[in-house]
């Protein structure tokens, strides 16, 4: 372990193992000490953040591609013969990969996990079982980020999903339980579709490793006769994989689980899952499209990628329109995510679209990843602000936000900045990603897509302006937070509000905590200044762009990598 290289190659595995192992601790230690969960989680996530930092340093600081092969030295890429056929470096076992693409996602997951923990110190929910679920979810998200194996990706998606179902229902309200059930059924259905697709790929190619899959699809190995891009089974596999991942990323019309889940989940859980769960699903879609199927596949099947573009475009328009019609803040933000992930998928789709030249590929990747990160920060911040406002005075509806600027100037300001960031007002973080996406769309010459991307700004303004108008310009003196629903419809928000009211003076105990304020402030600052780091993040992504443009995630690159050599020689 004294060799830094050996240490570095362990990081991808540790990123998954640490939270999953730590997830057992709150329950185990909870038998002895009652309130140990938060501290255990804090320590585990601090370690996680440190690991993520080390990985990011190895990837971006030293320009490495950190690969870990699970299972010890008998696994990996070996130069051996099987039945007289050379394996051509095909892998035995499961690879975990930290590269320029996954490194950013790992950083975001680790950072948000730690920040949300601070937020939930006071905001709840609590209980050792909850913290176990929280750690499990973090481990699953890390797994999705770093895995280099298609089946392994399914496993981590399911870990993520199962943990999320549990967390959504964590406050044990009826609506949350229904929302969790809906999420469970739809999420599992989507994951099954994904698994079917992976099965097809395995049947056709005999491998599950992403790099090996892309090589097989390209027809590289001697036992495969030419490129498989036109193979119906492969095309069908993409259909299933895409449908599954788009369900997880909540793309219209597969998004129906998402607004319920976001709206009914406890505020802290909403912050966490809105920032990360769909994010890693969209990331997985991008990774699969870019590095498994590769642009060459879509050149052979342009209709497929056009179909994905159409879905994503519809998602932008429908998500924004639905957001604009909502009256509950959390549902509004939830539908906003439907629209924003539509943009991210558009960007990934443009990056692999056959109409795209080098420039469009480059800006598509920049835009997708930047917007993914920016959205995580902004949307997490918005939900956190909404949660803080609800914790402060129980406002969960747009109508009760009237005159909020006087009552809660700090949180109102946060809503304003983050809202403008999601609209994409320069120089906020939301602007840069959208700008790259727009440039990519223009360079690819896909004019309907250009129209959707530009329209998305106006559509976003539709609901953000509604909020800002209420918060800053509606001075109805009788505007008071509504603790009950006038029309009598029971909702989770009302249930919480009702519970607060029933507690009699309970709002005092659920005041905006330091952790909540700090979380909101951090999100606002990052949303405001991340835009200035656009060039740095873009250049960090250049290896990804190069790999896509050379149409090879480069097994050669892996072989010559010092870390991989270490893994082999061990």
């Amino acid at each position, binding site marked *: 372990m004294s060799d830094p290289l050996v240490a570095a190659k362990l990081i991808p595995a540790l990123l998954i193992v640490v939270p999953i192992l730590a997830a057992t601790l709150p329950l185990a230690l909870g038998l002895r000490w009652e309130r140990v969960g938060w501290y255990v989680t804090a320590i585990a996530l601090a370690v996680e953040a440190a690991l993520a930092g080390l990985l990011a340093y190895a990837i971006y600081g030293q320009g490495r591609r950190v690969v870990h092969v699970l299972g010890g030295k008998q696994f990996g890429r070996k130069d051996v013969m099987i039945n007289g056929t050379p394996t051509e470096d095909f892998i035995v076992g499961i690879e975990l990969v930290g590269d320029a693409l996954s490194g950013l996602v790992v950083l975001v997951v680790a950072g948000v996990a730690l920040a949300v923990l601070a937020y939930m110190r006071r905001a709840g929910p609590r209980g050792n079982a909850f913290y176990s679920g929280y750690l499990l979810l973090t481990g699953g998200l890390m797994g999705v980020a770093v895995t280099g194996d298609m089946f392994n990706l399914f496993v981590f998606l399911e870990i993520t999903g199962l943990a999320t179902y549990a967390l959504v229902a964590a406050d044990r309200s009826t609506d949350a339980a229904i929302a969790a*059930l809906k999420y469970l059924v*739809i999420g599992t259905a989507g994951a099954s*579709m994904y698994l079917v697709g992976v099965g097809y790929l395995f049947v056709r190619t005999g491998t599950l490793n992403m790099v090996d899959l892309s090589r097989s699809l390209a027809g590289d190995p001697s036992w495969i006769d030419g490129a498989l891009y036109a193979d119906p089974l492969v095309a069908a596999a993409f259909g299933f994989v895409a449908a599954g991942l788009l369900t997880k990323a909540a793309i219209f019309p*597969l998004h129906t*689980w998402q607004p319920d889940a976001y709206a009914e989940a406890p505020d802290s859980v909403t912050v966490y899952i809105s920032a990360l769960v769909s994010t890693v699903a969209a990331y997985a879609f991008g990774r699969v499209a870019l590095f498994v199927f590769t642009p060459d596949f879509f050149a052979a099947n342009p209709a497929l990628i056009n179909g994905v573009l159409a879905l994503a475009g519809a998602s932008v328009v429908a998500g924004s329109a639905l957001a604009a*019609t909502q009256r509950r803040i959390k549902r509004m933000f939830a539908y906003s995510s439907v629209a924003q992930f539509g943009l991210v998928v558009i960007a990934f789709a443009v990056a692999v679209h056959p109409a795209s030249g080098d420039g469009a590929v480059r800006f598509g990747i920049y835009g997708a990843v930047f917007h993914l990160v920016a959205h995580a920060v902004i949307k997490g911040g918005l939900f956190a602000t909404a949660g803080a406002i609800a914790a402060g005075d129980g406002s969960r509806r747009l109508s009760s936000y009237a005159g909020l600027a006087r009552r809660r100037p700090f949180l109102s300001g946060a809503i304003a900045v983050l809202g403008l960031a999601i609209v994409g007002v320069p120089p906020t973080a939301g602007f840069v990603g959208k700008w790259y996406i727009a440039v990519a769309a223009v360079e690819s010459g896909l004019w309907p897509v250009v129209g959707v991307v530009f329209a998305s700004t106006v559509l976003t303004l*539709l609901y953000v*302006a*509604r909020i800002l108008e209420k918060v800053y310009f509606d001075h109805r003196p009788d505007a008071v937070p509504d603790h009950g629903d006038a*029309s009598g419809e029971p909702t989770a928000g009302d249930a919480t509000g009702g519970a607060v009211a029933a507690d009699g003076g309970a709002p005092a105990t659920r005041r905006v905590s330091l952790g909540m304020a700090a979380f909101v402030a951090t999100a606002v600052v990052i949303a405001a200044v991340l835009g200035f780091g656009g060039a740095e993040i873009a250049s960090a992504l250049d290896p990804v762009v190069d790999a896509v443009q050379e149409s090879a995630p480069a097994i050669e690159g892996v072989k010559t990598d010092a870390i991989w050599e270490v893994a082999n020689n061990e």
Partner: protein
Amino acid sequence: MSELATLVPPFAIVLVAALLVAILPRLVGHAVGVLSLLAVLAISLLAPHGTYYQTTLFASFDVVLFSVNSFSQAFGFVFAALGSAAVLYSYSSDAPKVTTAFALTYVSSTMGVLFAGDWLTLLFFAELMAVTSTLLVWHYGGEAVRAGFRYALAHGISGSLLLLAVTWHFAETGTFLFAEEGITSITSGIPLYLAILGMGINCGFVGLHVWLPDTYPRPHIAASVFLSVFTTKTSAYVMYRVLPLGDSVTLAVAYMGGIMAVYGAGFALLQHDMRALLTYHIQAQVGYMIAGMGLGLYLGGTTLELGVGGALAHVFNNVLFKALLFMAVGVIIYRTGIDDLYELGGLWREMPLTAVGFGLGALSITAIPGFNGFISKGMILDAADPHYYGSSATEPIYWLLYLGAIGTLLSFIKLGYYAFLHGEWDGPELADAKPGHTVAMLFIGGLCLLFGVQWEWLLDLLPWPLLKEEAYHLHPYSSSHLQSQAILVGISLVAFAVIKKPLSKLGHIPDVDVLVSPLVYYSGKASVYGVTELYAAIDRTAIRFVRGCYWVGSNPTLVAVRLARYLPQSFRPSFGQDEPPADGGTPSRLYLRASIGTTVLLLTVVITLLLILAL
């Protein structure tokens, strides 16, 4: 010495002098002004040919701020010579310090144009010329202010046209630099037409010339001397840079030159106001230049050398004699305060020096042998004459120019006759020109005579090297040239005797300005209204759109209900209430949530869709 000459660009020298003139005592300031222009004169003669300062502006445009070539040398020389005399004249004419200062900034920007090595620099200084000359007009106050405004409008338009042309040229070629020395025409097509139109306004194309007689007679007499020279002649030089070789557009411009010669001379003949008369002659003389360069460039070959050479020589000469005429007339106005020709008379006894100055100028402009106008005008006429170097295509131009020559003779006979010869001066005792006036006039008149007699020196100075070759036979003083000029003068003298009487009875003859001025006024007014109204309309539409969006945002349910009416009955979603109230009431809610079963159905639909697409 020659290195010293390229140390500072001429425009900078004159600009500094302009500032000093405004600050220093009047005598010292004007002396500095004269010296600065003499320095420029020296630079023009001494700076080594081919010297240039190239630099890059805004990290993207290559520009040559200072380029010494044969054009800038010739015109730098003559403009500097004239400028120094004009500053001296200005001093004697009691022009305010600030007037001279403005005049010098104007001269400075002209120097910038002449020594420019690329279109961007040229354009910049051309715009600066428009600004500084407008200030020069405005500074006089009174009627000159309104005229100055019209003047600024005309030059604003011409500058914008040239800007468009140059921008387009850059977009096409990716460079502002002149292609090479000599003919460096701007990109053909629309940029060319824009540039010709823009410079056409400055040169006084018939119909576009109304600003000329409108402005030049109005400001201070010294300002008129400056104005009469720089803008129009510089524009003629730019026009030469613009025109393409052998293009029919070039021929059309040459015809325009011929028409300008007749039109300008004709209207000059009708004027009472002395400076107005001279101003129309600017149009006529620029017509000769345009015609010469146009037909030379169109026909090419030996005509190219003769036509363009003649045109450039005429630019050179015209700078001298036209300014000289304005000086002489200016002295008359200075001493008598009278602008109207018919109120004067018998002045040669009162003001013999002024009469000599005027005579030198008039003999030059009417192309009397021995004066410089004879040389350059003769070259242009020869180039147009189908019996010499012209062709049948240029024959009409020849006759137009011939007619223009008669008109010129007639109008200067008229000017000289009524101002100096006719009758007796019955007003108060008049002093003659001041020493400064006299020196300025005699210096310029001397140059006119010098380049008329020693015409080879003129050709040596010109940027048309082929003219100097032995093979070229230029005989300005051949008997046939002299003979035809004698016929011209004869015709004119007889004609003047005939038309003198009716001419004096004529009142004001309207020029096209009676049409153009209202046209510009009303179209300008219309465009102002149009722009304002268009903006207002856009503003209204934008506000309506924002309001609409806001209404949609405030009443999403209502919008959804109304939109749903357009759906077929079976697809129409069910609503909580039938029709939610608009603004004010609580909107009802929409139940659009898909159940778990519906979602799984949707998932199946999406997969089916993707599988169909995968086929």
